[in-house]
């Protein structure tokens, strides 16, 4: 699952996937290495998810760590942190057909990106120019993948 979260370089802002970064894979010392380099500018940083303390602190502070640990079967919309976007994969069986039809009509369709605004008191998402408020229990039945930071329109550019 970790390969679905991208890193953003603090120096140049480049968005990249550390797991796919070829240079690391070819490095003879990459086993157990906690460092990662930005493929765009070469800036070296610690990948917090590769450190024990980073993972522990992350599990306390970051929703996505907690949720992912609990929900090993797949990411859902309720796992996506506020301010992040995710690609919709499908709907859980628990969503009644009427609700599913409404969600689709609002633009929540597979392979499209939605942007999560907040999770409390209800989940608020943005699809195109529509903002939807949906109950967290409903959001937890909407399967997503490829979560990334930032608004949806950034993807379309």
């Amino acid at each position: 699952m970790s390969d679905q979260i991208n890193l953003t370089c603090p120096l140049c802002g480049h968005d990249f996937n550390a797991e796919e970064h070829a240079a690391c894979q070819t490095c003879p010392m990459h086993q157990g290495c906690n460092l990662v380099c930005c493929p765009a500018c070469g800036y070296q940083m610690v990948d917090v998810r590769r450190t024990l303390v980073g993972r522990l602190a992350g599990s306390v502070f970051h929703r996505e760590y907690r949720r992912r640990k609990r929900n090993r079967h797949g990411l859902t919309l309720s796992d996506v942190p506020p301010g992040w976007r995710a690609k919709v994969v499908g709907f859980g069986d628990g969503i009644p057909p009427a609700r599913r039809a409404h969600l689709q009509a609002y633009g929540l369709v597979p392979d499209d990106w939605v942007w999560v605004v907040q999770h409390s008191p209800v989940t608020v998402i943005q699809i195109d120019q529509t903002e939807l408020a949906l109950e967290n229990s409903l959001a937890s039945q909407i399967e997503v993948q490829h979560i990334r930071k930032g608004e949806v329109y950034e993807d379309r550019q």
Partner: protein
Amino acid sequence: MQCHGSVELGTNVTGGSIALVGHPNVGKSVLFHQLTGQHVTVSNYPGTTVELARGAARRLPETLILDTPGVITFPPHSDDEQVTARVLLYEPLRAILQVGDAKNLRRTLLLCVQLAELGLPLVLALNMMDEAESRGVQADHDLLSENLCVPVVPTTATRGRGLDELQSALNTARPPQLRLEYPEKIELALAQFNAQLKQAGVKDAPIHLRALGLSWLSGDPVTESWLAERLSVEVVGELVSQRASQQGSLQKSLVATIQEARLAYVERIIKRAVTSSGQGRRNNRAGLSRLTTHPVWGVLILAAVMYALYWFVGIFGAGILVSLLEENLFGQVINPWVVGWVQQLIAWPFVVDLLVGEYGLWTMGMTYALALILPIVATFFLAFGVMEDSGYLPRLAALSNRLFEFLGLNGKAVLPMVLGLGCVTMATLTTRVMESRRERLLVTLLLALAVPCSAQLGVVMGMLASVSLTATLIWGGVVFLVLLVIGWLAARLMPGERTQLLVELPPLRWPVLSNVLIKTLARMEWYLKEVLPLFLVGAALMFALDRSGLLDWITHAGEPLVTGWLGLPPQASAAFLVGFLRRDFGATGLFLMQDDGLLNPIQVVVAMVTITLFIPCIASVMMIARESNWRTALGMVVLIIPLAFLVGGLLYRGLVLVGWGI
């Protein structure tokens, strides 16, 4: 999938009505007003149009325009959506005018494809172009028109932009020849359906037979009832078993398979015709919009909004305006003048008493309605109109969802509950925004039981404020507790599942003053029409009881309950008696008793709690019966009245026990 497929037999495009169809909150009602010159209540909240509005088109001769409730998608799932689906299948339509949101093209086009398949002349008005432009949403309208096979007209209804083009497009609208190709099994099922209908002798339908087949396969209840009216039970049975076996041969449901084909088509159009789907929201209003649903700031904003509402309605309306009208205008100017004239003109003391006596039609009925109640409801409806048009109410639904979850409902229940603070009868009508019958019944019960209307609230607040803040808190706490306990119990006793919240948050907008004023006036007219006759009947009833000596008898007969159980003076029986007509009328009677020094603090609190939990009024009971049935309405009355007295009596004993107010 193209525009030039063959037209099947069965397309019937006659009649003189044009139906406005579209998603909720896209400006259908504004466009209706622009096209007909007639006003319907418009608000920035889905579910405003609860009933069909019809009006003659100003520039289209002999044409009626029908404003339908918003639909999210077909087949219909809520009562509102079914109203629209019935219009499309049962009304003889000359054309359909789809009003679409120009900034949300995906869902607009999805509905457009569904409407185009009906085979009725169709025009797509891409409304709210100003908002789309400000957000950078750009589309090639000619290309959209070409792909959908319908004229596409960009409009901004609130500013009257694009209306001329729209009306000329409506004049020349033709049935679109859009024919989507569905997966093979669906096409096979459609062919079987058509063959079955032709065999049964149905060769014609108000909509395209192919569209009828798609609706049937999607499980549209309106299509099912239309077919059941025209086909024998055996044929319908065969169609049902055919549909079941077709469903069995598919991995996904029939409706999902059909919808996915439409979605794929829409996606292709979007890719071709939409040049920019816009940027994220970056303006101040978007920031404020986020704050209104924020877990901390949202609650603070809600508290500020509620305080502003309380100040405007409770202090300004119920305090300052009522005192100006009741004491100064009616008490010192109008009533002495009317009494003087009546006494001069009419010689019979009986009639004089009936008109201007203690329980006179004018001095009691009209004065209560115009001087006490009117300013309160006017200020409430004005404030509510501002809240509606600003788009704040759906945010309130999101914020209050957890509370309503406890009551077996979802946050959408907040609309009828808040509107109930204005008028419970009107709010009962808006329970239609709830998706299931179970939820509508639960909201109706809570409205009838524990939501005081603004008229009553004004009187209650006035009385309690003169006792102490603690009195107000006890009253509010007890009523809220009853609401929670009864709501929680009812949700667990009533069978059925709770519907999870899914609500669109429309952009926050500055309310248009003229729109708010017009609908406040329209609501006041509605309210007065309802309230005045009942107040006059109430006054006449009191007069008759007083004259016949029955009032004393009732006061005496009600003593065990009113005096013994509730601990109130015997005269309060009369207030509860007229409370059957309207509980604010009853509350006003208690208000006058307090003025005369007949009630101590405990009695004020007990009386207010009891009258608040009472049934709202005869009109609301009739509305409950209309929206559900008489059995439900009577059931609620039988539940609510004893409960109101039970809670009142228990509160009286509790307060005496702790020694409060002595």
